[in-house]
């Protein structure tokens, strides 16, 4: 098997995640799709680390995981806060800035 196949899987997962972010309306599902995109990029990092034979890619993937964890914590707190005030977790309902 060609080692670049991991990169193709990574690209597929990234684009599927992008579809989800645009199409889904539930804020939590949108968040999960963002996590999927981050994971796909991590897979590409790990594969490139192996192809190039140094561990820098793995270190960057590790940092991506840490930043993703931060992002999840803050993002979910924002979702809970919005839900508490508006009783809805749909991204279409939070449109106050439009008016």
């Amino acid at each position: 098997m060609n080692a670049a196949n991991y990169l193709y899987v990574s690209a597929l997962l990234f684009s599927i995640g992008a579809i989800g972010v645009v199409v889904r309306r539930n804020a939590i599902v949108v968040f999960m799709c963002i996590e999927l995109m981050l994971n796909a990029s991590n897979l590409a990092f790990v594969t490139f680390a192996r192809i190039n034979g140094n561990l820098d890619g793995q270190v960057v993937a590790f940092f991506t995981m840490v930043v993703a964890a931060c992002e999840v914590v803050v993002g979910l707190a924002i979702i809970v806060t919005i839900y508490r005030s508006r009783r809805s977790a749909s991204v279409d309902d939070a449109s106050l800035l439009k008016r």
Partner: protein
Amino acid sequence: MLNLALQVGKTSTPESVLFWILGPACVLAALAMVMVKKAVHSAILLASIMITLAIFYIAQDALFLGIVQVVVYTGAVMMLFLFILMLVGVDTSDSLTETIPFLRPIAILSSLGFGGLLITLIGRATLGHPMVGLSEANADGNVPALSQLLFSKYVWAFEVVSALLITAALGAMVLAHNHRVSARPTQRDLSIARFRTGSLATAAGLPNPGVYALHNAVDVPALLPDGTPAAASISAMLEARGDVIESLPFQLPAKGEDE
């Protein structure tokens, strides 16, 4: 004709078997995750994708990252997602009506284009060298080699990320903390409110539910002196759920009917 052959080197046969089983499963799970209606099902599918990716990492000599993936993502992050789903309400199902016209076809088309672009880009790129592999870099273990790199070359990024983690924890605490708009009512306030508003009949509290010889629970109304059930003695919540029992079977027959 597309030329998708970035030749970076062959992997071993067991790894390719692993890939051809888990890779399609992973992509299918991702598609299903975007398409299923319930958020909980999406979360479960995402967890399975993350476990698959952890196996991929371990197969690619990234042992530490594979284990961190399981612990952090499938352990902590997905747990957090499910927790928030429970908090926000599982039944807030996604409305599948399109609010923006033609959003879905446009999104799918552009994502397909983006994915095709990425894949052809990867397929046509040349790296100038065959796959090196990590056996040399991981000579004395993956974790020591990673930590060597993390605490020398990337130590500044490491410190910045630690500051980011602390900031995120603080931010979550600030966001989750809800402060009262008005002061909490004291017992005195409640007592005054009870006498000022509403009728004096309920000032001493609402009547208790019925106490009968055969049944003594909150789901049966008490009887008024004229023998009719008192609606105020039953919790409105129980009534809304339809859990209220008729008090008639527990009543003693009236004296006139007895003889």
